[in-house]
C-alpha cells in the first residue's frame, strides 16, 4: 500500500469539526477564501506530497549533498521538486495579495505543509526556509531589499536561509560574533563563520539569500548588539549577479534530514561580502523573535508529519506481517496471524495515533490563533489570540518533537528487527525526527521560555485565558453526555489536572517573588511537559466531544469517530494521570540533579 502520509479524514476532522476553519473567512483578510479554496488547496498538496515528493524521499536520504569545488550539489531530483512546489504556490501561499501571494490562512498553509513534510521533509524544508527568510524582509526590509530579494524569493527564483548559529552561539544567540563593518556606500562588509546553515548552499536556484545575525562594529555586548542582515550568495548590482564572498566550508554529515544540506558558511574570507541591514540596528534578535512563533509552529508540524508518515508505514506492516497466533490458539498447525491481531501491537498503534492526532490538533489550534492574532479586527480578540499563541508555542514546538520521537520509536518497534535495518523506512523517520527537539530552540530552552517568559513574564494572564478556554471545553464535554464515551469523567479528570497546574504555577511564582529564581526555574522542562500533557488532553477532550456530537448525525463515520473516542480514552487513562506526579515533583523542588557537582556527576 502506498503511504497516505496523513489520514485525510482526520485532517478534515481537525480543520472543520474541531476548529471550524471556514469561520476564519469572516475576517476581511481572508474574505476571498472559503471551504472550496481550502479543499482544492489541500487536494493539490496531498497529490504533490504523495505522487512527487514521497517517491524522492528515500533516494534523497541515501544520496546526500556533496561539496564539489566550493559548490554544494544536492540530489538531482530536487530541481524538479522545487519547480513543482513553486508552481503550486506554497512559498507565498499566505503572503498578502499585493505582494503576489494568496492570503491563505496559516491554518491551511500549515496543514498543506504537513503533507509535504510527511512526504519529504528535506524537499519541503527548502521551501519553508525560503518563505521564512522572505517574510523577514517583508516585515523589516526596505523597499530595495523587497524588490531585489524578497520578490524573487517569493517567486521561487531564489531560495533563502536563516543564518543564526555560530560555533560559540547556538542556544545563546546573544554571543554572535560575525562582524558587520559599515561602509560609505551604505552596505556593510560582513565577516564571520556560521555553522549548521540549512540550505546554506545548493545547485537548485541561481541564488541563495541568507538572513544573518551579525554585530555592527562597536555595538554593545549581548542581545542589544545583534543586528539582522540580508547576505546573498550573489549580490545584485545593476541587474547583474556578482559573487558575494560566501564560502561553503563543509557539509555536515547528519543523522537525518539528509536531503537538505546543513553547512558551515564563511562570510567575507576575501573581505568582499556585502550585507544589507534589515530593520533596525541592534534589534536583530527582536526581529527574529517576531518570526519565532511561526518557525516553532512549523517545527511542531514537521515533527507531527514525520511521526505520521512512520505511523502509516507501521500500520501497513502490522496488517501484513504474519507472526504468532492469538493467545487462545495452541495448535501450531493453524496459520500465523497478522501482528495487528496482537493486543500489544494495537497498543503501539493507538499510542502513535494519540500522539500524532493530539499534535496535529495542537499545531492547527496554534495556527488558527496565529491567524486571529494577525488579522482579527476586534482589538480585544486580537490581543487574546496573541497571548494564547505566545503561551502555547513552546508546547506546540516541543510536544510533537519529544513525543513524536517516542512515536517514531514505536513505529520502528512494530517492524521488529526489520525496523532496525534500512530495508524499511522506519529507521529513517526516527533519525529525521530527532532534529526537532534541537533546532529552533532546544527542549530545555523551550521549557525556560514557557515558564520564565510566557507564564511568569506576563503575570499569568495567558494561562488564565487558556484555563478559561479549557473550562469551556469541560462544560461542552459534560453537555455532550456519556452516550458514546464517559465524557463527564474525562472532563472531571482534566478539571483536576488544570487545578493542579494552577496550584503548581502559584507555588513557583511564590518562589520567584521570594527571590529564589533558580528554585522557580529548576524544573522548567518538567513544567513544559505537564503543561503540554494538559494542552493535549484538552484537545482530545474537544475531539471526543465533537465525535460524540457527530456520531448520531453521520452514522457512516461511526468507526472513524469511535476511533477518536477510543484514542481520547486511552490518552486520559495513560498520560493525563502523569501530570499529578510531575506536578508533585515540581512543587517538591527536588534538587538532587541541580546540586550534583563535579565527581558526583561522573
Amino acid at each position: 500500500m502506498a503511504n497516505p502520509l496523513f489520514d485525510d479524514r482526520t485532517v478534515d476532522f481537525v480543520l472543520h469539526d474541531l476548529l471550524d476553519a471556514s469561520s476564519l473567512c469572516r475576517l476581511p483578510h481572508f474574505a476571498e477564501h472559503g471551504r472550496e479554496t481550502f479543499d482544492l488547496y489541500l487536494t493539490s498538496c496531498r497529490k504533490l506530497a504523495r505522487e512527487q515528493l514521497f517517491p524522492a524521499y528515500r533516494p534523497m536520504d541515501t544520496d546526500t549533498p556533496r561539496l564539489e569545488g566550493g559548490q554544494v550539489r544536492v540530489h538531482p531530483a530536487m530541481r524538479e521538486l522545487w519547480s513543482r512546489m513553486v508552481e503550486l504556490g506554497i512559498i507565498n501561499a499566505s503572503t498578502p495579495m499585493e505582494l503576489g501571494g494568496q492570503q491563505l490562512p496559516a491554518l491551511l498553509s500549515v496543514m498543506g505543509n504537513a503533507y509535504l513534510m510527511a512526504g519529504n521533509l528535506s524537499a519541503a524544508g527548502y521551501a519553508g526556509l525560503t518563505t521564512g527568510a522572505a517574510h523577514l524582509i517583508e516585515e523589516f526590509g526596505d523597499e530595495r531589499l523587497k524588490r531585489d530579494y524578497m520578490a524573487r524569493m517569493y517567486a521561487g527564483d531564489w531560495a533563502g536561509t536563516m543564518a543564526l548559529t555560530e560555533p560559540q552561539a547556538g542556544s545563546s544567540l546573544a554571543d554572535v560574533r560575525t562582524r558587520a563593518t559599515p561602509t560609505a556606500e551604505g552596505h556593510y562588509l560582513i565577516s564571520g563563520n556560521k555553522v549548521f546553515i540549512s540550505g546554506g548552499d545548493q545547485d537548485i536556484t541561481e541564488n541563495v539569500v541568507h538572513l544573518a545575525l551579525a554585530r555592527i562594529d562597536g555595538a554593545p555586548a549581548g542581545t542589544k548588539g545583534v543586528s539582522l542582515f540580508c547576505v546573498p550568495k550573489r549580490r545584485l548590482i545593476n541587474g547583474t549577479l556578482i559573487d558575494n564572498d560566501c564560502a561553503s566550508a563543509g557539509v555536515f554529515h547528519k543523522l537525518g534530514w539528509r536531503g537538505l544540506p546543513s553547512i558551515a558558511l564563511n562570510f567575507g574570507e576575501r573581505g568582499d561580502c556585502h550585507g544589507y541591514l534589515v530593520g533596525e540596528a541592534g534589534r536583530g534578535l527582536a526581529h527574529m523573535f517576531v518570526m519565532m512563533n511561526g518557525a516553532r509552529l512549523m517545527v511542531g508540524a514537521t515533527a507531527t508529519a514525520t511521526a505520521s508518515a512512520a505511523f502509516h508505514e507501521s500500520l501497513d506492516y502490522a496488517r501484513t506481517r504474519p507472526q504468532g497466533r492469538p493467545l487462545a490458539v495452541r495448535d501450531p498447525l493453524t496459520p500465523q496471524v497478522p501482528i495487528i491481531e496482537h493486543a500489544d501491537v494495537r497498543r503501539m498503534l493507538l499510542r502513535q495515533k494519540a500522539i500524532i492526532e493530539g499534535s496535529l490538533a495542537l499545531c492547527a489550534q496554534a495556527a488558527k490563533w496565529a491567524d486571529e492574532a494577525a488579522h482579527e479586527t476586534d482589538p480585544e480578540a486580537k490581543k487574546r489570540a496573541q497571548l494564547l499563541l505566545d503561551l502555547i508555542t513552546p508546547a506546540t514546538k516541543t510536544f510533537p518533537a519529544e513525543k513524536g520521537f517516542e512515536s517514531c520509536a514505536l513505529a520502528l518497534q512494530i517492524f521488529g528487527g526489520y525496523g532496525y535495518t534500512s530495508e524499511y523506512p522506519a529507521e529513517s523517520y526516527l533519525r529525521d525526527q530527532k532534529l526537532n527537539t534541537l533546532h529552533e530552540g532546544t527542549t530545555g530552552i523551550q521549557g525556560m521560555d514557557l515558564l520564565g517568559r510566557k507564564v511568569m513574564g506576563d503575570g499569568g494572564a495567558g494561562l488564565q485565558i487558556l484555563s478559561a478556554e479549557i473550562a469551556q471545553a469541560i462544560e461542552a464535554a459534560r453537555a455532550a453526555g456519556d452516550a458514546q464515551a464517559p465524557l463527564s469523567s474525562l472532563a472531571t479528570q482534566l478539571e483536576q489536572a488544570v487545578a493542579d497546574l494552577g496550584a503548581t504555577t502559584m507555588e513557583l511564582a511564590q518562589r520567584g517573588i521570594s527571590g529564589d529564581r533558580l528554585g522557580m526555574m529548576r524544573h522548567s522542562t518538567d513544567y513544559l511537559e505537564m503543561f503540554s500533557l494538559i494542552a493535549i488532553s484538552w484537545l482530545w477532550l474537544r475531539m471526543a466531544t465533537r465525535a460524540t456530537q457527530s456520531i448520531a448525525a453521520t452514522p457512516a463515520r461511526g468507526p472513524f469517530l469511535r476511533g477518536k473516542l477510543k484514542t481520547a480514552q486511552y490518552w486520559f487513562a495513560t498520560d493525563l494521570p502523569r501530570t499529578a506526579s510531575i506536578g508533585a515533583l515540581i512543587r517538591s523542588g527536588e534538587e538532587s540533579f541541580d546540586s550534583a557537582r563535579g565527581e558526583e556527576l561522573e
Partner: protein
Amino acid sequence: MKILVTIKRVEDYESKIKVKPDGTWIVTDGVNYRANPFDEIAVEEALRLRDANMPSEVIAVSVGSELSVNEIRSALAMGADKGILVKQAGWVDSDAVARCLQKVIEREKPDLVLMGKQAVDVDDNVTGQLLAEYLGWGQATFASKHESLESAEEKAKKPGVKLAADKASVEVIREIDGGLETLSVKLPAIVTVDLRLNVPRYASLPNIMKAKKKPVEELDPKALGVDVTPKVKVLKVEPPPARAAGIKVPDVAALVQKLHSDAKVI
C-alpha cells in the same frame, strides 16, 4: 479554438465501496467523491492544446447533481476558462449524458470535444462514442502518445493530440490491441483519452483563487429538451467475487501443470 471537456463526479477509488444489502446500488454514505481520473487527463490535454493554440477557450461540462460543481471547480482551478453544469440529481445513464452533452455542444459549437474514455464508477466506455453518433461527428477513442510520461515532451507539457497546420483536423495516436495507431480526424470531433496521454497538473493556489471568479452556468436537462429517464435498467448490484487465497507450488513443473490443468491458461 474552442474546446469542450467533460468532467464527471465519481466515487473515489480509495474509498471502501460496499454494496447495499438489498443489492440496488452501493452505499454512498461515507464515500468520498472526486473527478474521474480519465477526465482530468482530458482537462490537462485541453489546457495544453489551448495554450499551444491561442487564442482558445476551454469549457468544462458536467452532467450530475449540484455537487458536481465541485468537480467543475477543480477543472477551473486547473485552468479551464468556464464551466457548465447540466443539473440532474440521481443516476443518469450514459445515453442520457450523451444526449445532454449533444444539446450543450449544439449551443456552444466547440471545435473539439475531449472526454475521458470511461468513468471509473461504472466503466461503461460508451458516452463518447454515443455522442459522436448523435452529433454525426468523427471520433478518435483512447488517445495516447508515443513519448513516455517521463519524457522531456511530457515535462514541457506538449499536447499529445496535435492540431493540423490548417486547423481543420487533429492527429490522434490511439492505443489498440497490437500497439499504437495514428488517426487524423476532421474537426469538429470527439476525442476520448486514455491513461498514458499525459500527467494532469495539480491546481495551483493562484489558479484556485482565479477559479472562484470564473463563471459556472447551470442548465436544466428538461429545458434542453432531453428526457433523462434511464434506458438502462439496473437489475442487481453485487460485489466482485472475493479473491481466493493464493497457493505456493514447489517448483516450475508444478506451476506449469497448475496453469494448464487448473487455470487453463496454457
